[in-house]
């Protein structure tokens, strides 16, 4: 378990470093790309990130204006923060972090690198968003439903079947 946590911390550090690397900054609207901030994030053990992690946190995703994060002892203020898209040699990178109790509790990558422009078209939208995270969890309207293979009998009770009937 510990090993996993360390591995994940390494991942987070990597992401934050990418995020900090901001040569360019074409501010982009984050609303279309960013996941809704998770709600009800549990308090977690202290996992103090490096101070640099907070330094370049960009504009708050919850307010329209851009404001620098106030630093606390851990260097992080509670809330959800979305960085500006940064162009790296791997492509644009944009990270959203959720801070609770002075520690990073969630990291989202609304926009992340890929090797080709074609990938980017898919990637920029194709991060699955957990329904419990979204604001409109109950009213999530979808065009199609993906699920482990159903038989022709199982189809009748599937969500896809209900959608198909609505559009027949």
């Amino acid at each position: 378990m510990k090993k996993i946590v360390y591995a994940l911390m390494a991942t987070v550090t990597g992401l934050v470093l990418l995020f900090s690397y901001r040569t360019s900054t074409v501010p982009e609207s984050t609303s279309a790309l960013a996941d809704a901030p998770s709600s009800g994030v549990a308090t977690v053990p202290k996992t103090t990130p490096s101070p640099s992690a907070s330094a370049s946190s960009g504009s708050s995703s919850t307010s329209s204006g851009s404001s620098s994060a106030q630093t606390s002892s851990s260097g992080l203020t509670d809330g959800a923060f979305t960085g500006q898209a940064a162009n790296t040699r791997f492509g644009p990178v944009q990270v959203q972090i959720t801070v609770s109790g002075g520690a990073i509790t969630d990291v989202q990558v609304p926009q992340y690198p890929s090797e080709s422009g074609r990938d980017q078209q898919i990637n920029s939208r194709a991060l699955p968003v957990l329904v419990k995270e979204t604001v409109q969890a109950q009213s999530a309207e979808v065009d199609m439903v993906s699920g482990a293979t159903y038989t022709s009998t199982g189809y009748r009770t599937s969500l896809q079947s209900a959608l198909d009937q609505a559009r027949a």
Partner: protein
Amino acid sequence: MTAAFTVVEPVMGTVASITVVSERTERVERAIAACVARLRDDERVFSPYRDDSDISRLRDEGLELGDVDPRVAEVAADCRDLRERSGGRFDAHWRGWFDPTGYVKGWSTDAATRAFDELLADGEVEAVGVNVGGDMRLRTAATSDHVWRIGIAHPTHEGELLATVEVVDGAVATSGTSERGAHLVDPRTGVHLAGPVSATVIADDLTTADAWATVAAIAGIDDLDWMPVAPVASGIVWEHGRTRRFAGRVEVSAFHDALVG
């Protein structure tokens, strides 16, 4: 925006839902018919449940690949490649004979969806999605701003969604134990997966998404070692209420899950 309509056809022991964002012209109807015909013809060649399929004859009559439909040799080569890249997590030969059932549905859906190539190119069709048994190939014309909003079925709460994902042009596949009981077998051990486990993968095409969703489900939630080498865009793995997500070959949001879980 143009209205969408859906056509439903039984195929491959399941159901194909073809949703087209376009006017319902004769040309569009012809493309739908061609799409379904391709799925059915691939079923005729590849079904292990039909004694007269090329796959069954290969198994029962001792034929060579050169003696049967050339599509079989193509798929066999793909499956060998996938077995290697997935570290044996996918293996069409695990039973001792060639059974590419876990591969053919995605591969065939990609091929069938090409029936809409011309219509998408000249803009008569704005977008088309072909969903075969819960795995789908999604296409959108370059001139359109259509975005497919896909729900990922919750593995254990029937009628509910686990997650949603937006795709312009690509494919979404889910593999797991939820819909018809334990039908996944780890080819490395021959053991049936107890589950419940569900893995969804998003990739450029359904051949890739379907194959790697199977790999992800077999691997289970504690094994994402295959992910950095997989040619996929993103995905989500669910097992016993835990989820892990990845995108762009990195894991996303696991920090929270790992600390709390």
